């Protein structure tokens, strides 16, 4: 499933610092919950990874060595060593290891360019973690945790319902 256009379109005009602030908050919450997330990267920890959701007007650049995440608006491109492009929900499913990356690649749902070894290392590092976005991000929502987790889980269920390569 792709992000519905009425939801994606406003991101073309929302100020980048606003989007980036929210994304950074989620990123740091994720790292707090999974401090060993980038350990498996080894020498590839110093590389820069771009995520290009093809249903959003944004590009996300992750730099594990810092660690940091930044957001850019398309068509400006991130100076990344490796980049992966696909629908946002599939990229998030990959983050959780909920979809098989090779199967998505075979099906052409994902495109990978640049340093393949670095991207493979990142895929394996993410797959080795037990990231659960609704649970992990909900944990940072204080008293709203149950509501955030439930809502995020419902969105995920719906987004991945039609994906034949998704797992439970």
């Amino acid at each position, binding site marked *: 499933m792709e992000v519905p256009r009425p939801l994606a379109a406003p991101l073309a005009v929302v100020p980048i610092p606003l989007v980036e602030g929210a994304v950074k908050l989620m990123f740091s919450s994720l790292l707090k919950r999974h401090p060993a997330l980038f350990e498996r990267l080894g020498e590839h920890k110093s590389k820069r990874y771009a995520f290009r959701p093809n249903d959003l007007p944004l590009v996300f650049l992750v730099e594990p060595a810092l660690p940091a995440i930044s957001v850019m608006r398309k068509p400006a491109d991130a100076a990344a060593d490796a980049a992966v492009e696909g629908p946002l929900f599939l990229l998030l499913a990959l983050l959780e290891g909920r979809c098989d990356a090779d199967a998505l690649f*075979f099906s052409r749902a994902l495109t990978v360019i640049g340093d393949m070894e670095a991207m493979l290392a990142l895929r394996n590092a993410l797959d080795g973690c037990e990231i659960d976005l609704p649970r992990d991000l909900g944990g940072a929502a204080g008293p709203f945790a149950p509501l955030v987790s439930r809502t995020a889980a419902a969105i995920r269920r719906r987004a991945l319902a039609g994906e034949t*390569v998704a797992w439970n």
Partner: protein
Amino acid sequence: MELICPAGTPTAFREAVDAGADAVYCGFRDETNARNFPGLNFSREELGDAISYARRKGTQTFIALNTFMRAGHESLWYEAAADAVRLGADALILADFGLMAHVAEAYPEQRLHVSVQASASNPDAVSFLVDAFGARRVVLPRTLTISDIARLARQIRCEIEVFVFGGLCVMAEGRCSLSSYATGKSPNMNGVCSPASHVRYRQDGGDLVSELGSYTINRFPRDEAAGYPTLCKGRFDIADASGYAFEDPVSLDVMDQIDALREAGVSALKIEGRQRGKAYVAEVVSTLRKALDARPEHRQALLARLRLLSEGQRTTSGAYEKRWR
């Protein structure tokens, strides 16, 4: 028959155990195993924890030390064997005769399996490994028909394990030099076939072009399912024809031959895919577990879904039902 399942990370390992594996095979994070990919495999501590987890659930752990030792650097493999034994591996999967000799001498009680990388596929070869090193099981190369396997089983004194699902290597494993030819690195010596460091993908219009080293491997039109960038799955121009010279980008699936394999004398069915993610492991292991326990007429329906997880989104029975010479 046992179901032998792959794991490249501790989370995939737990998924395999929970999904019904009888045994999980895995390796250390170095060149001692034939899936030495970045970010993959286990530290000593992780493997110790994994083995404890498997034991609690009644699942065995096999540790693959199935590359060939480099002269002068044998200690890397010897230390890996010592650690695998110390951590409580139920079996070591070995390819190098020198390492088999070392394990047989140093750890005579340790169960030893012959890796597919040893390419032992006839009674003389298997019997030598049984007699010389006490091998208890041989993993057969994917080059034999089911009749070949049945004939072999009658002439050897160890268990037989065969690949039934996953990536299909069409060469005699352990002897293939295509990756070395293109990149200087091989699964046999470095644990990597067509290493990611030498792979490049680029978009050319709607086509996806895959390159390995300085070779263009394939060009996939917009709506065609893609495959791995290995030379054996490459599309070649030969005379006036253009096509796959060695093998199409497809995966192995002979789960519809379970009963024939059992009758042929096979003890264990192996799933390829330590390099695949936990989602793949969970899905494939649980489905094959169900298929193994299901009546024959119900198996196809269970297995159909797995095709989408396969290379090229197609499967083949490969040499098991060889119709060519």
